[in-house]
Every structure is written in structure tokens, then in C-alpha cells.
């Protein structure tokens, strides 16, 4: 009790409340009379806990989360603080999968609904949509028992001329046995994107089957007489790998390939880069220089651009040159995944729809064995395996959304929620390191699918500027190549997600969605009225009982206009002026009550307001049971989203 929750931007804005630890969450409940605002944090989200030096006011505890929330608590007694610290350390580092939230999360769906949820994304359908199998590509079940490659899915697509013998031979010559397999097929010109890991070529080793495999890929595209082989590592790293018996394809040995390095740094560099960037975000009152210098020093945007550039190169090769590309890095499950999915997104507008995006992640990340557990720390493991690989991909998508605002069916919130759930372990999609492990754990029978959950709430994730018939949503996207450094922005919506004071207080997206919905409703109503009018005129009954619904219409128009009745508060513009009394504005501290353009609309629709906002973490206070098993909120944390519906407790 009597724990204080501090605000990073203003040390004055500390609130006092009670801290609870449950099996799955850390919960802070404010003491205030009317507002029992709650902050929920899933243990899975906790990245690190720091116990700081005890001061006069108490013992500070800093909790850093994987979704970039930073919570600073001050616990009065040092001993209590220590207990909390020790407990959290244990809770945030689960040892068994069963400890994870997804195994106790209960959204109150029946078995069939759960199953249906898992069927929402069907990769077979996806490959069919792409146009395979066909004359050039076939499905292979050589890996049906994971006997060839345990990090690959049971079903992969390979060139028609790649026999099982060739596949097996090639797999023995590839790191982790990740042989070249199809990632994306371009119906229009037969060019394809294939992915693999590095060849075990060392300085001079060769493998006939592997060479035949690449030939097969080339032959599967009659429109071109060569393929690109893109190694997404820096040249130096790739060369160093040769000393360890691995390496890259020698153009002399593989006929008709054009080899290309596109240097993207490894997971360790990326981990450090993110770390440095987050340190910048934690600076108190940084100057513009502190920020820009810190951002530059982290190298983060440089890495994002490198991934994007690689994706652009591959997309161009496929769309403009009609040449197939084989992509690999070291093990073919990090940079390869990033680059293949960015390229696919640029090439195919389907992946820019909500459903298509889910499919893309299922295909290039989930099915192809991206090591979610190791990278995002589902379970306690080697800290050197942790790296923000998928975060970078998600950011690439956001950067593209900023450059092409009409091209994506989904909005920023969709991306943020996906990132959130990759770490939350609330759903089973991103558990383990491979399809094999997930099947062994019977994930589909024991947990729920994130995709179904997002799909159910898709109204929240739509981009009002998207139109399937808009020019930006047709064909390939062509981001400007150079000069283009300035096009990469710092994504404060993600990395400062929980600092509401930083963001525009009114969401243009929500407003426009409300406008769009309303226009639709009005148009439908207009149709109905016109019909009725026509009927009435036909029947010619003297008494014109046309109940004028005009009033209703004008009432509705007023509903979604942005609600400006809530003021925002000034930040501290004068840090050195102690003479300024911190007179709390008479309007109350509206920091937490954000302008909700949608709020008015939602208040007329009880269903939405009850459980619409996932991030308020308070779906239904009455059935909250901390022991896990009751109806737990779907997402954690209270005052985060800039569109959060503020639910007074």
C-alpha cells in the first residue's frame, strides 16, 4: 500500500495507490476517490526490473516493459520493495510454457469458436491465391515429420524440378538444414522470392544438390536466365563465416546466379541499437540535440532503412526485372524473414489488407520458424538471443504507412497491438521457436488465436483513407530511394506509446472512421427514406404520416464532431522557475482523460464501450478475478493508448 507511481515527464504528477501482484499481472490501483484508475502489466511484458537507491521518499523500482512502457514505482519500505523485486524477477522469467498467460486466458469462447479462430489464417489458401501449385511449383511433403528440417513447416513449396533427393541433399549443405523454399510467387511474371539459410561452403566446399536446387529455382522462371542470390549480411560477417565452414554462394560454382550483399547488421547489433534508443527515450527533459544525437548514436533508423532498402531491391528485381531472388542471412530466420516480408508487402497489395498482413506474418515468420521464444523471451533464456527483429519489421511497415497513407487497409493501432501481443503471450500464435514445437505443445487446442481477436475488433484497426480502388492500393509500392533519409521518422507512437503528453491529443484516424461510418449510415438511411417516400406517393393515402426522421439525422451529425470539451494541460516549459506554483488547473488533471472523438459515438453503443478498449485493461470490473481463470482483461495497462476510453472505476 501507499505506493507511488511516478510520471516521467513531471515528477510532480505522482499518484498514490496500491500495488498488487497476481500470477499473471502486476496491478497498480490509484487511490483517488472517484477515479480508481488501474494500470495492469503482464509479467510476460516485463523486460527488466531495476531497484534503485532508497531515498527519503521511499525505495524506487523501475519496471521496463517489452512494449516500451516504463513504470516507476516508489515503495515506502525497503524490505517490501525488495520482496516485490524478487517476486517480479521470478514472475517475469517463466521456466515452463504452462506458466504463460495464454494457458489461463479465458475469453469465454467455446471449443468451436477457438478452432474457428485458428482457421482464420490458412496458408494453403494463401499459396493457392498466389498461384501455386502450378507448372513450375509444387508442394513438397518431404519434411512431413520434420525429418529434413525441424524449424521448417511440414509443407513447403519447391520448384517442380526439385526432387526429394535434391531437397534433402541441399538441406545438408545449408545451416540448420534450412534449404531454399518458396516465400512469394509473382503470378504476373513467374518471378519468385525464395528463402534459405547460408550454404556450408566454407572456403571451397560444394554440393551438387544445392547447386541443382538453385538451378531449379531459376528454371521455374522461364522469363529470366539468372537468379539473384541476396545475402543480407555485411560482407565481412559473411566472409568470417567461411572460416567456420559456412559462408555464401560462389558465383563460379553456381551457374547463372548474380550474387549480392546487402548489409544488415546482426541480432546483437540490433539489440544494442534498441537499447541505446530507449535510453534516449528515458532522458528527462532532453534538448533537441540530446535527442537527435542520441538517435543517431543508436543507429536505429539506419538499420530500419537497411532492411527497407533490401526489401526494395528484392521487390524491384521481381516486379521490374522479372528475376527470381533467393534470400538468406546466416540461419535464415531473422533478416531473411524481415526482408522477404517487406518485399512481399511492397509487391502485393493483398498483404496491405488486414487479413493479408496476418497471413504474411503467419507465412514468413510463424511457419518458417522465426524463433519467437528466443527472440522475445517467452521463457527465461539466453539474453544474447533476445533481439527486436519483428519490431523492426513492424516499424518498416509503419514507415511505409507514413509515406503511403492510402495504401494500407489497417492503421497504426493495428501494428502497435500486434507488437504488444507478440510479447504478451496472451495468445498462442507467437510461442515457441518452430511449428514443430507448437504442435508438440498442442497450442491450437490449449490457447486462442490473436488473429481472431484482432479480426473481431477490426473496426478499431481500419485506416479511413484506404480504398481498395485507390491508386495507392494497386500494384507495387515504390518508395523513394535516394535521397530519402529524411523520410524515416522516429516512431514515437510506439517507443513513447505510453506518454500521452507527447502525442496529438485528437486522433484523426478515429475521427475520420467515425465520419466514414456516419456517412454510410446516413446514405443507407437516405435510401430507406427515399423508398418509403416513393411507396407513400404511390399509395396516395391522404394522411401524410411521414414521421420526419430529419431530426434524428441532424442529431447524429453532431455525435462525432471532435469533442473539445476536455482541455489539455501544459507541460513544464519552465524547469528552472521555482517561483511558479504548481497550481493544479481547476479543470482537474485532464492528462489522463484524452480527447475522444469516438467517445461520443461509442457512448451510444453500449457493446463497444464496455470492451472496446483493450488497453485500458478493465473490461469488466465485476468479474475480475486476480487468481486467473475468471474473465481477465484482454490487454494490460491503464493509461496508455491515446484513444483509450477512460473508464471511471
Amino acid at each position, binding site marked *: 500500500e501507499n505506493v507511488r507511481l511516478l510520471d516521467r*515527464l513531471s515528477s510532480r504528477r505522482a499518484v498514490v495507490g496500491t500495488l498488487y501482484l497476481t500470477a499473471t499481472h502486476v496491478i497498480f490501483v490509484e487511490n483517488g476517490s472517484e477515479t480508481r484508475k488501474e494500470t495492469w502489466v503482464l509479467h510476460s511484458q516485463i523486460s527488466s526490473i531495476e531497484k534503485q537507491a532508497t531515498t527519503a521518499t521511499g525505495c524506487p523500482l523501475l519496471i521496463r516493459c517489452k512494449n516500451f512502457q516504463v513504470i516507476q514505482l516508489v515503495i515506502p519500505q525497503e524490505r517490501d520493495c525488495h520482496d516485490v523485486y524478487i517476486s517480479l524477477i521470478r514472475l517475469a522469467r517463466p521456466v515452463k510454457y504452462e506458466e504463460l498467460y495464454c494457458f489461463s486466458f479465458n475469453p469465454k469462447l467455446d471449443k468451436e469458436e477457438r478452432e474457428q479462430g485458428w482457421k482464420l489464417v490458412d496458408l494453403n489458401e494463401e499459396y493457392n491465391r498466389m498461384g501455386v501449385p502450378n507448372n513450375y511449383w509444387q508442394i513438397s511433403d518431404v519434411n512431413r515429420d520434420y525429418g529434413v528440417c525441424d524449424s521448417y513447416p511440414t509443407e513447403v513449396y519447391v520448384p517442380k524440378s526439385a526432387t526429394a533427393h535434391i531437397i534433402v541433399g541441399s538441406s545438408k549443405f545449408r545451416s540448420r538444414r534450412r534449404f531454399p523454399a518458396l516465400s512469394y510467387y509473382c503470378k504476373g511474371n513467374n518471378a519468385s522470392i525464395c528463402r534459405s539459410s547460408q550454404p556450408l561452403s566454407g572456403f571451397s566446399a560444394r554440393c551438387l544438390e544445392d547447386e541443382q536446387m538453385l538451378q531449379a529455382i531459376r528454371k521455374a522462371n522461364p522469363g529470366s536466365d539468372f537468379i539473384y542470390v541476396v545475402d543480407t549480411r555485411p560482407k565481412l560477417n559473411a566472409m568470417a563465416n567461411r572460416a567456420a565452414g559456412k559462408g555464401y554462394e560462389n558465383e563460379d560454382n553456381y551457374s547463372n546466379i548474380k550474387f549480392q550483399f546487402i548489409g544488415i547488421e546482426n541480432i546483437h547489433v540490433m539489440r544494442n541499437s534498441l537499447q541505446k534508443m530507449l535510453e534516449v527515450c528515458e532522458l528527462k527533459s*532532453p*534538448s*533537441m*540535440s540530446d*535527442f*537527435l*544525437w542520441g*538517435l*543517431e548514436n543508436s*543507429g536505429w*533508423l*539506419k538499420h530500419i*532503412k537497411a532492411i527497407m532498402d533490401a526489401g526494395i531491391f528484392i521487390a524491384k528485381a521481381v516486379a521490374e526485372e522479372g528475376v527470381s531472388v533467393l534470400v538468406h542471412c546466416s540461419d535464415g530466420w531473422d533478416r531473411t524473414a524481415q526482408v522477404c516480408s517487406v518485399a512481399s508487402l511492397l509487391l502485393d497489395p493483398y498483404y496491405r489488407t488486414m487479413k493479408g498482413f496476418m497471413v504474411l506474418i503467419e507465412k514468413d515468420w510463424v511457419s518458417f520458424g522465426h524463433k519467437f521464444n528466443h527472440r522475445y523471451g517467452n521463457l527465461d533464456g539466453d539474453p544474447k538471443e533476445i533481439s527486436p527483429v519483428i519490431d523492426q519489421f513492424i516499424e518498416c511497415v509503419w514507415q511505409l504507412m507514413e509515406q*503511403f*497513407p*492510402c495504401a494500407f487497409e489497417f492503421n497504426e493501432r493495428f501494428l502497435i497491438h500486434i507488437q504488444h501481443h507478440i510479447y504478451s503471450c496472451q495468445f498462442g500464435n507467437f510461442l515457441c521457436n518452430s511449428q514443430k514445437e507448437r504442435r508438440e505443445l498442442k497450442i491450437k487446442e490449449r490457447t486462442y488465436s490473436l488473429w481472431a481477436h484482432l479480426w473481431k475488433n477490426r473496426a478499431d484497426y481500419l485506416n*479511413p*483513407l484506404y480504398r481498395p480502388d*485507390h*491508386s*495507392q492500393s494497386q500494384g507495387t509500392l515504390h518508395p*523513394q530511394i535516394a*535521397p*530519402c*533519409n*529524411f*523520410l*524515416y*521518422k*522516429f516512431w*514515437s507512437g510506439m517507443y*513513447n506509446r505510453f506518454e500521452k*503528453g*507527447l*502525442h*496529438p*491529443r*485528437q486522433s*484523426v484516424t478515429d*475521427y*475520420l472512421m467515425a*465520419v466514414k461510418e*456516419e*456517412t454510410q449510415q*446516413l446514405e443507407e438511411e437516405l435510401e430507406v427514406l427515399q423508398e418509403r417516400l416513393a411507396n407513400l406517393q404511390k399509395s396516395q393515402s391522404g394522411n401524410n404520416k411521414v414521421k420526419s426522421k430529419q431530426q434524428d439525422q441532424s442529431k447524429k*451529425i453532431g455525435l462525432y*464532431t*471532435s469533442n*473539445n470539451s476536455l*482541455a*489539455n494541460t*501544459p*507541460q513544464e*516549459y*519552465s524547469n528552472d*522557475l521555482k*517561483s511558479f506554483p504548481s*497550481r493544479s*488547473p481547476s479543470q482537474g488533471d485532464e492528462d489522463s482523460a484524452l480527447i475522444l472523438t469516438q467517445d461520443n459515438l461509442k457512448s451510444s453503443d453500449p457493446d463497444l464501450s464496455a470492451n472496446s478498449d483493450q488497453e485500458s485493461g478493465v473490461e469488466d470490473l465485476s468479474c475480475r478475478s486476480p487468481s486467473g481463470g475468471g474473465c481477465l482483461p484482454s490487454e494490460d495497462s491503464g493509461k496508455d493508448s491515446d484513444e483509450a476510453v477512460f473508464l471511471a472505476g
Partner: protein
Amino acid sequence: LLRSSQPLTGHNRRRCREDEKILGTILDEGERGFIIDTRSAQAAKQARMSGGGTEPKSSYPQWRRIHRALERGRPLQESFIRLVEACSDPSLSMDRWLARLDSSRWLSHIKAALSTACLAAQCLDREDSKVLVHGAEGTDTTLLVTALAQLILDPSCRSLQGFQGLLEREWIQAGHPFQLRCAHSASSHVRGKQEAPIFLLFLDCVWQLSRQFPFSLEFGEELLLTLFDNAYASAYGTFLCNNEKERRLCKVKESTHSLWVWLNQPEEKHKYLNPLYSHNPLVIWPSVEPQSIQLWQGLFLRWIRPSQHLDEAWQEIQRLVEGN
């Protein structure tokens, strides 16, 4: 909110009863006011050597002085030039780009300007105190602060009409020397001594506000770009000369057309309106954290990056709102 130029105290510490009286009568008995001096304390002190200076506490007892150094003049022009050069350099790697952006210091100037304006606004709104703003001449950073403060505080300045009125009042009639300041812009080899993009800095700050409060300004980026263009080269007489006196001497009103008249024509006006506008009666407090201040791409990358996709987005927004 008041504005002036610096008091001519000089190294003799001259006093002026009339000046003290004016500032004295503005405040009620026991009331306290703030003077925001847009020069650093150092610079203000040094100004005494050339006849200028600050208001001594003893002579102006009810006024408390705050210094907020805002860049102007030559250094501001250099900052502008460096930014423009960084934007148009195609060979820059990402690291170098951020370094160049930082070393231009343009965004730092934005942060400082917005912070100072917010400070003034806070004094007025939260402390119920009167504020006097001045720098040295009262024609550059002073106007920047007073104009921005009014935008922050007063919703009527955020309408299209109101904004035009604000510009007329706080920039044109207040005597910002447009002729001297907006002579050649960034690319010219001619480095005029009096050249400085203070008005552009103001427009950039307004753009930052429009980004943070997308519903609160009745006008959009197009207006700001048009104003920028016309400050430097115009078919209209609105931004000619350096002050009202010169305009009268040159018979500007008789011999030229007004930009406002043209802008306000119905056929033109709609281009400049913000389809998202909804009258916001409250004070808008911008965030001046570095993450909240962004490069004004629409201006600085105007000729460098294709704006097609962003224009399409804007058209889509207009379509959605008008369709309703």
C-alpha cells in the same frame, strides 16, 4: 500581453519616468508582471554598452524579468541554410543526416520558440499575470513570441480570418522588416546582413501546432506555404517594405493588391481550409519534447520528395469530410 523594444538604459543606467509610469499603471496594486526578454541575460547586459539594456529591478519593482534566448539574425540564417543544404544533399548516409539535422539547430530553435511562447501563455493563462515581451529591437523574436502566444491562447486567432488578422497585427503592422529579412532566402550566394528567416520560423511553429492539434486550426499547410512564398516574392503588396511608414510612402495600398483579398475569394479559400477544423474554445498547449517536434517536410522537402501520395491522402480526407 504587451510588446516593446529594449529600454535604452545604457551603461549610465538611465531612467525614464514615463516608461516606468506606463509599466507601473498596467499593473494593479501588489500585482506582479513578467518581462520576457528574448535575449540571454549575458547579451542583454552587453547591450548596455551600445546604449540598450534591461529594466532594472529597482525602477520596475513589480515586474519580474525572465530571459529566454531566442536565435535571430545571422546565426538563424546560417541555421536555415545548413538545414536546406542537408535536405538537398543526396549523398548523405542516415547517420550523417541526423548529425547534419542536429548541427543545423533549426529544430532546436523551434523548440525554444514554442517553449517561450508557451511560457508567456502560461503566465497569462495560469498565473493571471501580465506579460511584456521584448528583445532588442522588438521586431523579430518579440513578434515571434507574441504571435505564437496568441495562437496558443486565443481560439479566434486560429480561424482563417483570425489568423490573417494576427499576421496583420503582429507582423506587418508591428513592423517586422520583411524587406530586409526576406530578401534572398537560403540558396542565394548573397548573404545580406539583415537577412533572417524569423517569419519562416514562425510559420514552422504554426505548422508544428497544426500537427499536434489537427482539428484546432481552420487553415492547413497550404496556407503556410503560400505565406512563406509571398513573404519572399509576391504579386501582392501585403509583405512589401519594412513598416507602415514605408508602405505609406511607397503608396502600397494605392498601387498594389492585397494578398488577403485574393486568399479570401471563395474559389481560392477552400484550398487553404482545414477539412478537419472544429472550433476549439480552449487553450492548446503544445508538447515541446524533441519527439513532438518534426521536420516540416512540406516546406523543406517540397522540391525534393514527391508529394503525390501525401496529397492524395489529403484529398481523401477532404473527400471523406465533404462527402458527409
